[in-house]
């Protein structure tokens, strides 16, 4: 398959934290969600993709080219929104338009105007007077206004209210209607990802726990609600994590491995993430 972004065995070591064996492959026409706790390594991974920090090992290729020797014009095809707004504080949106016109050869001022109108952003206000949500929207508008083929979004929706987040998801879905386009987005708002993503990659303590199709993932797991005694009957290999409460237990189980007649609820991405983390914590204790 043709991958727009591919990470192979990427690693990076800091004092007290290490990312290792990061393998991600993002096909064209898809959205991949990157989930994990704060400090799990999502932003570090994204920074390595953008070559803002050096990796210790492995390889990263974007559009089939090593990201360290990509010619400048290939960066035109990547739109990026970072977790912190990086717009200089004294600038207005109008001035940012002027700057971007001089940075991107493919800058589309009309499209930019369309997005900022759609997001209802004030033209002359300085960035330091923009709210976090406004800055996020502006960042998204910029990322979408130079005909990028790949969007990389680091917590790009986290400063926005549910209504706008929902609109953003629509915008992103629209973006990948073009089969050549892809999005890699990290977020801890898993419901957004569940709506938009084709693939989910879960990073936990610097390692990838899984990276697979969302539907596959949702089909694979189920939530079993039963009494504690009932749970003992079930094959241990089927149980990923257990949460005890007053009336019994909730367990995240692998559907195929559960034998017998049990009622299972659908597990969402958040359940899958939380139970996995819990399992890991109880193992450590």
């Amino acid at each position: 398959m043709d991958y727009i972004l591919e990470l192979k065995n990427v690693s990076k070591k800091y004092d007290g934290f290490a990312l290792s064996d990061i393998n991600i492959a993002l096909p064209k026409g898809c959205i991949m969600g990157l989930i994990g706790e704060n400090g799990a390594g999502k932003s570090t991974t994204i920074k390595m993709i953008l070559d803002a920090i050096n990796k210790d090992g492995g390889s990263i290729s974007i559009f089939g080219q090593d990201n360290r020797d990509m010619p400048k014009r290939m960066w035109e095809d990547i739109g990026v929104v970072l977790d912190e707004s990086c717009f200089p504080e004294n600038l207005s949106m109008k001035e940012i338009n002027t700057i971007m016109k001089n940075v991107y050869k493919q800058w589309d001022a009309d499209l930019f105007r369309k997005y900022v109108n759609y997001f209802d952003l004030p033209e002359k206000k300085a960035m330091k007077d923009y709210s976090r949500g406004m800055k996020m929207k502006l960042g998204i508008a910029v990322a979408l206004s130079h005909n990028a083929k790949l969007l990389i979004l680091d917590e790009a929706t986290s400063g926005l209210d549910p209504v706008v987040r929902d609109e953003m998801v629509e915008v992103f879905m629209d973006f990948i209607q073009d089969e050549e386009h892809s999005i890699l987005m990290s977020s801890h708002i898993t419901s957004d990802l569940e709506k938009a993503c084709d693939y989910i990659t879960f990073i936990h303590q610097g390692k990838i726990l899984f990276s697979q199709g969302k539907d596959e993932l949702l089909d694979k797991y189920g939530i079993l609600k039963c009494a504690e005694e009932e749970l003992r009957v079930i094959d241990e290999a089927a149980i990923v994590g257990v949460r005890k409460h007053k009336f019994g237990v909730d367990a995240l189980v692998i559907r195929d491995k559960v034998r017998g007649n049990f009622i299972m609820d659908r597990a969402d991405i958040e359940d899958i993430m939380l139970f996995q983390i819990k399992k890991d914590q109880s193992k450590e204790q």
Partner: protein
Amino acid sequence: MRGLIIKDLLNLKKQGIFLGAFVIVYLFISIQMGDGAFFAGVLLIMCALMPMTAMSYDERVKWDRYALSMPISRADIVVGKYALGILLLAVALVASLLATFVVGDINFKDNMLSTIMIGGIGIAMMSVILPILFKVGVEKARYVIIAVFTAPVLAIFTLGKLVDNGRITISQLGQINYTLLAAGVIVALIALFVLSLLISLKIYSRKEF
């Protein structure tokens, strides 16, 4: 790189207004004093330090990390800051020379020379400061920069002392071949500037954001 310089100029606009007010006040003082060199001195040094102000703005919002995700290379970012400094210095130099002319100084030639000399000091300061800024950032570089500032003052002060003490006599100063000295200074300045740029490029190519 054009985009980067435009970004810095727009971002420094407020400083520009401040600088404009300053220019008017000092120009007035200079006219009163009948001496343009003083005006030129302050203006040139302020302009030579504008890249530092621009960098502190960038640092505050982590601009560099964002810029690197655009079709902008690390070298562009470094060269952009040097270009900004030279550009502003050139504008200040022209303004100063014009001012000297307007002030109608009797020592027009002398003042022109001193203005150019101060421009040279500006380039030298910029060359020393920028690699340090790229290495440790504006916040940490503050003290080093104060030292860099004091150096020329100390040098002139020491020279003055030596003259006072009779170690250097005015006639000795008169014996210096000024054409040769000027040529030497210009070559040294260019060398310093190029070296500084190369060091900054090297530092920045390995920097993490």
